[in-house]
């Protein structure tokens, strides 16, 4: 691994200068390219640039749910972004962050000055049982799906069972994640679910993969999100409030659940967090001293609780206590998923990671709706995007302050 000082020798600073997000939800009113345009148009307008200014397009789509096999070309064409160069990234549910990482590298390396990152997913083109099938196949298909039919809720349920057994968290503790995220979803006009729920409603819902119930699960959603990245020189011409990429940490773990060391944490998330904190100059022992607001990967309620611990927002086995004390609401120690999270905002796989970046950019600029703006005192925000069940992890740290490592 490179020593800390090396980043600045090779990499340029990268700023976010424009963001856009479509409404998430069942979007069977549009095709995938039309859905992409909703966020691309907003991001271009937000950055104040024309399509001709864009030099490269990084597109995150998981695919399979959707008939179109070449979403990058299709969406770029619809958005009038031809002759740029494009590709499609895949990192399961962290596909959007992988697209962002690719765009970041294009700017940081000096390959391009202005890059469009698009995340888009059209999951509702497939019937729900088929969508459940595609997501369940997303690990080691041959050894763990072909004969055992594990679903995605099932993979996280394996973790919920182990966590609850080890630390004594109850089903109501899991429900608190859903209650919080539905509350903030109700304040976000782009969220899939706008209804508030109670702990009682959540624990009464039917089992999907015991011990996880319907209200422990994020919905199957359509949506798109877009971000414009710029080099420091380009960013200075476009905006007075660039949002800087301060650190990125990436990791991956075994495809097979049977090769994991344990089920109360995602080792890839811990690894990615350590790398991202190191690049950003954040002390792993005390991240809350640096971070104002976070979006974490709450595809299932247990995932948000493990994220608190993997990011070291809470000690091992104490993540669920943050929720009992409402420390992850605005006004608490660290507001988390105040856009509704995957649970209420929705989880269109490719759009999710880019949507997190778009949301946190707006949080740092203090541009979100009333009632869900986190206090910004330290100037840093964190996106934790897990692909699969800790198969991939991308952690991105954004800042109002220009990083010290950038050249």
């Amino acid at each position: 691994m490179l020593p800390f000082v090396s980043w600045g020798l090779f990499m340029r600073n990268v700023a976010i200068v424009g963001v856009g997000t479509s409404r998430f939800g069942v979007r069977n009113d549009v095709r995938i390219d039309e859905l992409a345009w909703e966020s691309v148009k907003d991001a271009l307008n937000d950055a104040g640039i024309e399509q001709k200014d864009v030099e490269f397009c990084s597109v995150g789509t998981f695919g399979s749910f959707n008939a179109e096999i070449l979403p990058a070309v299709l969406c770029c064409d619809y958005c009038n972004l031809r002759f740029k160069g494009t590709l499609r990234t895949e990192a399961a549910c962290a596909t959007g962050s992988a697209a962002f990482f690719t765009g970041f590298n294009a700017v940081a390396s000096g390959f391009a000055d202005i890059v469009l990152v698009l995340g888009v997913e059209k999951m509702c083109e497939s019937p729900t049982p088929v969508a459940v099938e595609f997501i369940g196949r997303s690990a080691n298909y041959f050894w763990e799906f072909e004969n055992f039919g594990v679903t995605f809720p099932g993979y996280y349920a394996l973790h919920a069972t182990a966590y609850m057994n080890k630390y004594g968290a109850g089903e109501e503790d899991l429900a608190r994640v859903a209650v919080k995220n539905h509350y903030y979803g109700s304040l976000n006009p782009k969220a899939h679910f706008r209804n508030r729920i109670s702990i009682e409603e959540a624990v009464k819902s039917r089992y999907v993969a015991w011990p996880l119930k319907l209200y422990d699960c994020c919905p199957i959603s359509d949506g798109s999100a877009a971000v414009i990245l710029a080099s420091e020189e380009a960013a200075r011409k476009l905006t007075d409030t660039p949002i800087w990429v301060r650190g990125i940490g990436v990791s991956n773990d075994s495809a097979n659940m049977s090769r994991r060391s344990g089920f109360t944490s995602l080792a890839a998330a811990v690894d990615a967090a350590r790398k991202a904190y190191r690049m950003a100059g954040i002390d792993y022992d005390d991240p809350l001293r640096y971070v104002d607001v976070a979006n974490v990967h709450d595809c299932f309620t247990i995932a948000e609780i493990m994220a608190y611990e993997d990011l070291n927002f809470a000690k091992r086995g104490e993540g669920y206590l943050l929720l009992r004390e409402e420390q992850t609401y605005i006004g608490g120690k660290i507001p988390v998923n105040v856009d509704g999270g995957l649970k209420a905002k929705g989880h269109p796989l490719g759009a999710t990671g880019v949507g997190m970046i778009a949301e946190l950019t707006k949080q740092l600029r203090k541009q979100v709706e009333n009632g869900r703006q986190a206090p910004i005192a330290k100037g840093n925000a964190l996106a934790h995007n897990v692909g699969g069940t800790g198969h991939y992890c991308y952690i991105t740290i954004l800042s109002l302050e220009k990083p010290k490592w950038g050249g």
Partner: protein
Amino acid sequence: MKIEGLPIVIDQKAKIPIYTSLRELRVNYQFGVSKIEKFFNGLREGVVYASKCRSCGETYFPPQADCTKCRSSDIEFLKLSGEAELETYTIINIKPSTFAHYKDYVVAIGRLKEGVKALAWLEVDDPSKIRIGMKLKLEAVKREPEGVYTYAFKPCGDGDA
């Protein structure tokens, strides 16, 4: 409401037109298994094999023919004792489309005596009696209605589940 002469229906709930593709796709994927054929033949004979590197001793389950730790492909198939302890489990209530014909099934991860873990169904009559840490046996079993061999955990000991 279907529109005559077009693959479009008006969705009753959302009141919007939906176009359904005419080109249905069906696919059964094919896998090359020549390097681990012995594993599958073992299941027919009632044996569950792991693989073990003759060079560095690393044990793999599911079995793999290449030791990617020491880069040797000199491996042997190791008969697993089947003795295991339950590490975690779930019950799949909402099933994928290709598993819709099964009753709710228990997916378990067990740690085997040999040090490797396995993910498989846990065949029990009453899932409420399952306890983390309970003793299990990993066995080759025939899966119905397909009639093909695979492997599964079963409770062992005092018939406590």
